């Protein structure tokens, strides 16, 4: 053993030996490096409330898409009405798992008849499929309305944040004014009128969607982009000033690199989260309008119009109100909880 000299300039040759197996172990990656997305997914997965809500949303969405394919009844088919025969009123207002007169005969003859799980409504339509279809309509309205809001808000918000100066000033004043308009009243006003003006325009083209739903989309596009564009503008403004952007610039990064590697990834999570939280509020607005009779067109159901129709027979058939009410609350609640979970998982900064 050589004596160790403290302040020697001699090189210790031991330090230059090939690495032993034990040394090499330090270099082995214990677990793969985690990306931002993976981290977020892990956090989301751990959040039980958000996870359960996500499963509920998936179940509701899938069943609203799949069930109409194999369900033997359709949402607009009035069961008692057969062409050429008088209307069979025994099909109207059936309680759950009751059957109409001709169905009763079939059962007695040994045939199997698909049960009316939630009974039928006042016009003799199978209520279960109406609820399912109403859920589909409400979800679709919520989803597309948020996509519209997201696109318009992103475009205007990023223009405002990117250009700044006078463009920003003008856009932000417009946003201020639209923001201070009472939204619900404007929605009611616009959809009342748009419905009438749109009807002749869409005749023969997209008539099946109905003027009411289109006017709802127009209203969303006109009024609700302001919140989103404010958010995106604020994000871009604050991100532009961050130190890591400065350091990227200092090390010679080009504008494109900064935008794709720094601005967009840091901005996108906030944007997607607020778009996700927009869906329940759109569903809420749609059901509110349908309840006031301004929503979807007549034979087509939405959860709000089902609840509104049920109000007429509330003393005899309260379950007809309870069912869409439960579905709507479940959708709104789980979307909200899932949105909160997304926010906690992907944007720890926002967590308040």
């Amino acid at each position, binding site marked *: 053993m050589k004596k160790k000299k403290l302040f020697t300039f001699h090189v210790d040759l031991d330090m230059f030996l090939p690495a032993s197996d034990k040394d090499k172990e330090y270099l082995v990656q214990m677990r793969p490096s985690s990306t931002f997305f993976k981290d977020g997914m892990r956090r989301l997965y751990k959040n039980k409330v958000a996870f359960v809500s996500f499963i509920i949303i998936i179940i509701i969405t899938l069943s609203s898409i799949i069930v109409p394919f194999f369900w033997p009844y359709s949402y607009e088919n009035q069961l008692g009405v057969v062409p050429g025969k008088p209307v069979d009123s025994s099909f109207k207002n059936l309680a759950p798992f009751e059957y109409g007169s001709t169905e009763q005969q079939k059962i007695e003859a040994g045939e199997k008849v698909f049960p009316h799980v939630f009974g039928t409504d006042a016009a003799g339509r199978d209520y279960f499929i109406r609820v399912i279809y109403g859920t589909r309509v409400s979800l679709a309205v919520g989803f597309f309305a948020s996509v519209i809001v997201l696109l318009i808000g992103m475009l205007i918000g990023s223009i405002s944040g990117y250009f700044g100066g006078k463009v920003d000033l003008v856009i932000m004043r417009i946003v201020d004014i639209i923001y201070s308009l009472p939204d619900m009243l404007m929605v009611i006003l616009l959809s009342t009128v748009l419905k009438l003006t749109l009807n002749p325009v869409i005749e023969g083209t997209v008539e099946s969607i109905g003027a009411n739903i289109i006017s709802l989309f127009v209203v969303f596009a006109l009024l609700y982009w302001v919140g989103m564009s404010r958010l995106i503008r604020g994000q871009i403004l604050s991100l532009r000033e961050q130190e890591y952007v400065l350091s990227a610039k200092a090390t010679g990064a080009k504008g494109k690199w900064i935008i794709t590697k720094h601005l967009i990834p840091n901005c996108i999570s906030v944007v997607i989260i607020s778009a996700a939280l927009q869906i329940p509020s759109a569903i809420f607005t749609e059901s*509110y309008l349908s309840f006031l009779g301004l929503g979807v067109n007549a034979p087509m159901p939405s959860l709000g119009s089902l609840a509104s129709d049920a109000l007429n027979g509330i003393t005899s058939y309260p379950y007809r109100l309870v069912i869409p009410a439960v579905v709507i609350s479940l959708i709104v609640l789980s979307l909200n909880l899932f949105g909160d979970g997304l926010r906690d998982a992907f944007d720890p900064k926002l967590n308040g």
Partner: protein
Amino acid sequence: MNSKMLGYVVKRLLLAVLTVLLICTITFFVMHAVPGGPFVGEKATTPAVQAAMEAKYGLDKPLAEQYFTYLKDIVTKFDFGPSLKQRGRSVKDIIFDGMRTSLKLGLIAAAVSTVIGVVLGAVAALRRNKLIDRIIMVITTAFVSMPSFIMGSLLLILFAIKFPMVPANGTTSAGLILPVVTLALYPMAYITRLMRSSMLDVLGQDYIRTARAKGVSGMRIIFGHALKNSLIPVLTYLGPMLAYIVTGSLVVERIFAVPGIGRQFVSSITNRDYPMIMGTTIVLASLIVIMNLVTDILYKVVDPRITLD
């Protein structure tokens, strides 16, 4: 009030006036964009009769002139013209009539929700993570995600039909109980959550610790320091709460048949009573804008730490 504050108030006031004017303009032109005009749906009218009716209501004049007459009448006489469907009554009278009931309903709901919300929120914050806090939070989460029309209908089924304790019809005073409860539940739940988080925030502040260190009693800390300061965020919610109550009253008055302005508004939409729709929209929207203005200014007055921009 310093000059900066005054500048802020003036700026907000101008914005509010501009907004109200914009609302009037949008309402007017949107209503006149409807194809066919208001008398087309009338049964058994000849073109001559229609022309006479349009002349009577001034609909034959150029649009710009109609617009300025309409604005002038609102500003000088608070006159929104006659109702087209309720013959012989002016929109102003109908609005005043409905407002009496609706204001009563809305104010009681606002008061109830604020008081209960503040108390529940404070209790939840002081008993943080205890059983009572958990219960309060679960219930308020459920209330926040339930649309008002569903809440109202369920209450109607439960307390007026299954277990008839209160009348289902909102025309009497006792009949206002359910509408008030329906309207108050959402803001109450919201205020509870707001109050809880702001109270928790305040309880963690340095001045509370200082007060504790000085030996101030628990009660005095809560009532003298914490409660007052944690009320500020609740104050900012007053404007949005009014907007909620106004829009909520549209459905609540429909469900419980309350003879208020909300029901008039909804029925005027289905009847296509244009002057009525315009008048109601303008009055309700202005109410919301004014309330938001008052809230914002009050917020700045109460808490001088807030920076004005």
